[in-house]
């Protein structure tokens, strides 16, 4: 059975590793990116079933990544995983196509549910 492939985008290596190990345990395949620019390169060349995207990152923040994805017609469910708890930012992200907004520290059960629901919806 093919595993669902998740792109994890966060400039914090520890957050990426933690999510990757957890998702690996839950049966997902993961790819880690530490910057928005690298994430876009991956998204251009590889198919993903979902993206976990941090908002505060150097060089290119999560909102800019979402805007670029839109311009590039990349339609993958994006779940925002962030320490920012600003309603306006959440609304901006949702208007750019994000499907969920999970605050850090991450509730792993909630993350798994969100992935299952959003990947299923896409399929």
């Amino acid at each position, binding site marked *: 059975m093919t595993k669902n492939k998740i792109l994890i985008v966060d400039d914090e290596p*520890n957050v990426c*590793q*933690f999510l990757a*190990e957890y998702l690996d*345990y839950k049966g997902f395949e993961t790819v880690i990116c530490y910057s928005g620019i690298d994430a876009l390169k991956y998204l251009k060349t590889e198919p993903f079933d979902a993206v976990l995207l941090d908002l*505060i990152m150097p060089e290119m923040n999560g909102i800019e990544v979402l805007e670029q994805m839109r311009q590039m017609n990349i339609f993958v469910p994006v779940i925002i995983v962030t*320490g920012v708890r600003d309603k306006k930012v959440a609304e901006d992200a949702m208007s750019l196509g994000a499907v969920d907004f999970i605050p*850090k520290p991450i509730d792993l*059960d909630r993350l798994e549910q969100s992935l299952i629901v959003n990947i299923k919806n896409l399929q």
Partner: protein
Amino acid sequence: MIRVKDFLRFFLFVSMIMVTAVRADINLWVMSFDNLHSDSEIKWLKEGFVDFIVDHYADNDYVRAYRSEKLDETLSVIKRNPAYQNARNYVVSGAYHRDKGEFIVDLQLTDLKTWETLAKKQVHEKSSDLEQLIMTVNKALDEIVDPRVKESIKTNAGEEKTPEQEVFDVGKDKNLEDIREMTVATKDIGSALDKLLADFQEKPEQYREPEPFSQNQFSQDAFTDRVRDFVRETHSFEQTMNFILNDPYEINIGEPTIQRLPMNSQSVLLSFRIDYRIKMEIVREMIETLKIKGKKEGETYIEYSFSGNDYLFTSDFIKRVAYGQYRYFPVVSLKDENGNAVSRIIDAPGTIDQIKHFNPMFNIAAGPWTMTIYLVKGVQEIDYELTLPIRTVAKISQVSIDMMTEDEIVQLVEK
């Protein structure tokens, strides 16, 4: 950098000591904390919290806390080590930020076996006192860890011990526990050694440069005014020195290499490089919170002097300085997958036929009215080489370094 050709030319005390590991009921693997708002002023707490937690559990009989640099490596270490497998392994992750002057720290405990989130706790600390913040975080962690300890004790009481567990209980030797724990750097080298042992006959590998320093890095903003105030207000000269000497070195362990010995088919020459340097920014910041009488700085050193008119240097403190109790030397332990030391290199001044190899990079000299601190800048790169039987090298999976005083080294050797 001179590579040491003949390992007999410097003092290498290699002892084949089988030291059994101390079994803990719960292992906490503490990851760097997440600085939620990328707040540069408190960026240093990412690693700072990890250090505080590891220190907090250093003397705990049931819980051991370890820094988890990379979670995949941690999982691999647990998998290969029965001592860890027999315990409960939880990952501690955390995140922090400031909101209107208040520190907010989130803690999470996750079971590494089931990936179940066992507990979460958020703490708020209004005080700007660093010590208070550390205490609050440690207390909160205790509150989520303690129920697991009780649960573990209850479960263990009802279980018969496996032979493996018996071994570890026997290993919980009081004498060994008396040795102060000061492991400052650890690196898993098992897989590298396995690979090297597999093909060392064909092509002895070239020495590899150690990776750039990445562990325990503290940036300039590590010490905010808050920390400076904390030191100034609550610490005397002696306390500040003790605080600094708790962990002044940043250590990086290079990849090992193995070479065949022409006249001895049963043994190999194991070499590895260790880089030592002072955590200069953090140490400078701390020293400069004190009232300095004089400061000299050269390309390779910084020297600070302090006056007895400003500080009371107790006779005990002066004696300790004079007896070298503030001078630390590296003890390099090559460990097997169970954490047992199969070989040790004690790089310190000894008594017979030796050349001292490691030079302390933090020195204090005491005079009747002045105290001088001498910091060495830059990196001290040391290549260690030792000849070991192939079967011993095959057992090595980890190298760790403890910085010890000469007294502690004597205690270690006697035991």
